[in-house]
């Protein structure tokens, strides 16, 4: 028994060491964002405590565009939340229509989905850009092309498949209208999947770089992810604020991940079915 428990201790220690190794970049990012400017990157342990870097972001150090960092954060929140909501709604509607309504033409829609899945999105990038150019530097320009997710649709398709058909048939026999069935049975049942899809799309969209960079070059419309990218070179000798901006960019992801970890585990196992 003692060798077994010793083995367990070794395993836990090993796993802890590995987790700490994986977490090192976050640790380093955080301590450098809180270090006094003259000490940034000079130590692996916290070198003092200063909020200068975060204060810099509040007013952009008094430079041009004083509120660009705050606005970028707001842009990120607006674009990401709207996109994720739209992707959940469109995904749920199509998924429900194909699996539970089985309306005339559901096969056709399903085949279009499969056909589209066949083509990598990169082929369409240049033409979509040309098409969306009139909407450059607007929220719709950033949101619309990413507002439908094939992955989300398939998540809902797979989920609705697992709901027993009898419940829906029984409701129909009781004379419930399709809208009522949907409202009372269909959507409430899909709540968990909706959360999983929302979170996954949210996190992916939060870190989207290429499209946002192309369609919103105006500094007032850039998301936080893009603003750090465009300031990467010009602000090269101000590592403190870049670290602070990275912390702000990373924090929501880590927080959501920890708060909803149960959903992620479910989402993962569900994804593989």
């Amino acid at each position: 028994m003692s060798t077994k428990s010793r083995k367990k201790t070794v395993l836990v220690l090993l796993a802890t060491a590995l987790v700490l190794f994986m977490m090192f970049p976050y640790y380093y990012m955080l301590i450098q964002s809180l270090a006094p400017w003259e000490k940034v990157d000079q130590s692996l342990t916290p070198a003092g405590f200063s909020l200068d870097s975060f204060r810099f972001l509040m007013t952009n150090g008094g430079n041009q565009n004083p509120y660009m960092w705050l606005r970028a954060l707001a842009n990120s929140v607006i674009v990401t939340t709207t996109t994720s909501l739209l992707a959940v709604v469109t995904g749920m509607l199509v998924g429900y229509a194909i699996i539970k309504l089985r309306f005339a033409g559901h096969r056709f829609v399903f085949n279009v989905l499969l056909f589209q899945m066949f083509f990598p999105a990169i082929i369409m990038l240049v033409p979509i850009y040309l098409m969306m150019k009139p909407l450059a530097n607007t929220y719709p320009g950033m949101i619309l092309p990413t507002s439908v997710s094939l992955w989300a649709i398939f998540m809902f398709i797979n989920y609705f498949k697992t709901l027993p058909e009898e419940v829906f048939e029984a409701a129909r026999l009781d004379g419930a209208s399709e809208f009522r069935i949907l409202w009372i049975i269909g959507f409430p049942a899909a709540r968990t999947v909706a959360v999983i899809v929302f979170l996954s799309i949210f996190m992916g969209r939060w870190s989207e770089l290429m499209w946002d960079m192309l369609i919103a070059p105006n500094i007032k419309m850039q998301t936080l992810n893009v603003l750090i990218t465009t300031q990467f070179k010009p602000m090269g000798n101000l590592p403190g604020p870049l670290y602070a901006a990275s912390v702000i960019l990373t924090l929501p992801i880590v927080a959501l991940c920890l708060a909803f970890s149960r959903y992620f585990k479910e989402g993962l196992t569900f994804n593989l079915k």
Partner: protein
Amino acid sequence: MRKGISERTKIGVIFSTPYFVFAIVFFLIPLVWAVWLSTMDWNLMAIEKTWVGLGNYLSAFTSERVQAAFLNTFKYMAVLIPGVTIFATGIAVLLHNLPQSIKGVYSVSFFIPYLTSGVAVSVVVRYFFSYSSVFNTFLRDQLNVDVRWFQDPTPAFFIITGIIIWKISGYYALIILAALESIPKEIHDAAAVDGATGVQGFFRITLPMIVSSYSTVIVLLAGLIFGIFSEPFLLTGGGPNLATTSWYLELYTTSFVKFDSGMGAAIAILNAIQIFITIRLITYVLNKIDYNAR
């Protein structure tokens, strides 16, 4: 009953309309447009376009940069597929044997890097490996090692691949972990009774039973490698000597820095062809292996 059917159709059509409009506007039209554009010489601003037929494809074949993007994809795969699968297997086996009470927290910790923005990670990596950082000062002063991390092709390539291994291994570990946990405990017990050691048990029993999860991992991984962009874009610009460039980077530079959109469309299509063939090939080989393992 007739009324019910027509109501279903009506709602079904209404529900499918958003996707349908999306598929037409953001998929079908751009798809045709892309093929047409790839036969044009057009600089995105000018009014006149010239038809060059397969000219763009021909100059893509002879372009050093496109060739580099093509070859780098395989270079990335050669490092990342073994690197990620081995590291992810290690994490998965470790997680599998952890006490139930801490397993959840540890799994999430390994998973978080997968969701972290490549931009934030690039900020850290850039300064951590900068000339006067604590890390490089230590290397120079204590070990007398002076590496120019981003100026030499080899370290630059391994920094990019290192970031990606760090970023995604935890996610793939969870896929492998799910496969590990689906193996009934009795099988291991039976093997132990028959005198199989831990290592034997892993290679003879566990591995064959989770082989199909590796197919998932490798196909997902290959797809991901074709999408490498943020890290080389920010850290190396694809260099030095094109050592870290990728298809996305090449497409971005050609279409939106050089404004050669015809060429850009051709590059995107060539990339899609390589994706298609590579994934097919990988699936074919994996199916063979999977079949033999059974």
